[in-house]
């Protein structure tokens, strides 16, 4: 391969357009190297940002062929091998674009602040003496502290793509989760409440945030941990928690789900009544029998033992 082509989605503040740049291939280079090459030898007006060029500042995340990556650490050769000589570069998804590949983080910072992402130390600690924490406790927050706020997870999150009114960027849950998991923090509920109020139970488990994170952070796991913690704390007065509890309850009782009572337990009687047309459709098709209460499955004692063990393991 002699020439590499970057096909870039550009935006000048008013209109969007596509532009192609081609440059000579060199081995063992990165996506960022190509962008710099274009800016320095072909078109100084191409806008993108980068600072550390070593995958720690989070500035350079862009979408290449539809997937968010850190431009500075992503090897060009690997991409060229997979996609051929032309790569399509776009700004991160789910962010407002300022110009070309530059996105606006300011609104994200406002949303992040809502989750109260700061340590609220336990009373036994002080600014003068610092804190104590065991190695094992430190390890519990080590993964989350890797987040560099690059936005890759937010770019690819399927739930966020449907709108951000009822959902946060995945990294917001990770930040909240970090403090809930930090043994030095004494106010888990403070970090939990804001994320509970916005989307904690709405993640669709697509795992995009986990596979796209360049720093091996796993926002989806943090979301799961936050959910468990919210239930442990008795913050169950919401559809998500009720659904999960109903789910667990059914499994413990009978080893199977009871679709009929599930909706009522999850949404409450009134709200589930609004789903009546849907339920009636199911009824008509014989998918739902309101008079059927499932009998326990065979081996229900085993199921209950598993649930009990799982509960104990978590505590």
């Amino acid at each position, binding site marked *: 391969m002699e020439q590499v082509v970057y096909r870039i989605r550009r935006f*000048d503040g008013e209109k969007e357009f596509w532009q192609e740049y081609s440059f000579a291939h060199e081995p063992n280079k990165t996506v960022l190297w190509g962008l710099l090459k274009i800016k320095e030898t072909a078109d*100084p007006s191409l806008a993108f940002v980068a600072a*550390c*060029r*070593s995958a*720690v500042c989070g500035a350079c995340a862009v979408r290449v062929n539809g997937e968010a990556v850190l431009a500075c*650490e992503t090897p060009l050769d690997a991409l060229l091998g997979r996609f051929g000589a032309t790569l399509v570069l776009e700004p991160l998804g789910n962010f407002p674009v300022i110009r070309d590949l530059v996105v606006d983080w300011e609104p994200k910072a406002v949303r992040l602040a809502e989750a109260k992402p700061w340590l609220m130390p336990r009373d036994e600690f002080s600014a003068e003496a610092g804190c104590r924490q*065991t*190695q094992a406790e*430190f390890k519990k927050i080590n993964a989350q502290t890797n987040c560099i706020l690059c936005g890759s997870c937010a770019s690819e999150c399927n739930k966020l793509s449907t709108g951000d009114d009822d959902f946060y960027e995945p990294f917001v849950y990770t930040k909240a989760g970090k403090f809930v998991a930090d043994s030095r923090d004494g106010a888990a509920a403070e970090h939990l409440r804001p994320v509970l109020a916005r989307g904690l139970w709405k993640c669709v488990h697509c795992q995009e945030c986990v596979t796209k994170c360049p720093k091996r952070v796993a926002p989806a796991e943090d979301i799961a941990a936050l959910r468990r913690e919210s239930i442990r704390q008795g913050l169950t007065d919401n559809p998500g928690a009720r659904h999960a509890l109903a789910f667990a309850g059914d499994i413990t009782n009978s080893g199977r789900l009871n679709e009929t009572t599930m909706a009522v337990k999850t949404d409450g009687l009134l709200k589930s009544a609004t789903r009546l047309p849907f339920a009636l459709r199911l009824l008509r098709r014989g998918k739902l029998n309101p008079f059927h209460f499932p009998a326990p499955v065979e081996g229900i004692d085993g199921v209950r033992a598993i649930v009990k063990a799982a509960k104990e393991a978590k505590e």
Partner: protein
Amino acid sequence: MQTFDVLVIGSGGAGMRAALEAGARGGLSVGLMTKMFPTRSATGMAQGGINGVLGNADPTDTVDKHIFDTVKGSDYLGDQDAIAFFCGQAAAAIREIDYYGVPFSRDAKGQIAQRNFGGQSAPRTCFSADKTGHVILHTMYEQCLKHGVKMLTDRQLLDLAVDGDGLCGVVALDIRTGTVVPVKAKAVVVATGGAGRMYWSRTTNPFTSTADGMAACFRASIPLKDPEMVQFHPTGLAGTGILMSEASRAEGGYLYNNAGERFMARYAPEKMELATRDLVSQAIETEIREGRGFGEGMNAYVLLDLRHLGREKILERLPGIRDLAITFEQVDPIEAPIPIRPSCHYTMGGVDVTNFRTGGTALAGLFAAGEAACVSIHGANRLGGNSLADIMVFGKCAGVGAADYAQAQSREAGDGALMAKTAEWEARLAAAMARGGGPAVASIRDRLAEAMWNKVGIFRRGAEMEEAAAIVDGLAAEYERCAVGDDSRVFNTALVNYVELGNLLAMAKAAVLGAINRTESRGCHLREDYPARDDVNFLKHTLVTLAGAQYELSYRPVVVTEHQPAERRY
């Protein structure tokens, strides 16, 4: 016009620590201006750790030892009163940021873990795996969010505005709109980081370390102190200059030449690889010059071997380093040694701070902290782990100093000086954007880097530096007619780079001037034509001041209290 009591410029550890301190006081309006999103700062790149005498790993460690190590490390160019103050505060600063949420690695007792670092007589470097700066930076950011510090993101400081009665505020480029905006402030803290990008092609620094704050203060007649003191880190990746943290040597890495020798035995038989950075960098370059390296010219290198540490230790203690070596050098340190070569790392010199307790400068209302500042505690050579401690200790001091000043200040500065500066920059930037033809910014920048690396690098000679001075002057002349290449007002990064290059040129000129006239060898400043340290004539700080268009040179004695200069051996 936006107006603040305290305006901090730069969102690295120093700037955010200062903003937090001023913000937490309450009752003051505090702004934090930064040319990128706050967490994109050099501070986040620090891997190794932060120094303070906690006595966790070694109960016999003392503040006095930290002081002596720092004085000796600085090759006696550090001011001993400031160093004593700094070492006395470092432990408290670390405990405090633990309380703010910095997730430190822990020892068996649950205390903050500490390890060895170059040039230290005890294991006193606190760390969080190999991402210490990253977690400090993000914790500072979290605290700024908590305290509601007003962030002015995507704003590049251009100049300070000063009238007959003192500081009025600053003018900045609003990168989003391409307009020059005045910001009024009673007190300003400059915390814009270092100038490593003078050596563009071989530096560990991010693209943003372009001496902006240093140059702005310089243009406001504040001296640059010791600008010739530039630290080269021994272990930059051969191809890119990206840093392999000192932790890689601290955890026990070996350095080999092409004959398979651990060559540090020749230069520092006791400390070996753990000698100070200046010594190890000079040793590596000597090996390369004398033909014992691998490769040729700019591509020459030696090897850093971590294999004997074993897979587990590498994965647990040095995971970030391993990732970098794999990504940028295609080498997995578990299996093969890493090609490395020194890389420009840290600017010891900077804005002349005259009151270390407040970060105050000669201009009332102007404070400086962090790598942009020169207190001086690092003298001619900074110890690993002392910079993160510096930005936490002196960032806080500057926050207090600026807040106190703003509270006591009753003067309402007029708008005259601010508006005049704004108009001046607006015209200058408009002209630069409109200009066609002319040399490209990147071309001037690359030639500056080449001249600096080859002629004002690790080994220095008077004659070569005179050549460098002439080259820098020539480049500065070219700069006056260079082309930005983009006339858009929306997020014009070419314009940002243009401004940065002007600052790099000013800083480089001061550095070369200081270096030519320091006819001795001290710390990182190694004169082959003057190989000995000369305490009789040079136990003093260089001060470069702008007078009209002239760069003027003067000196100030080093503060020596307890430790008389002695030969430095490791």
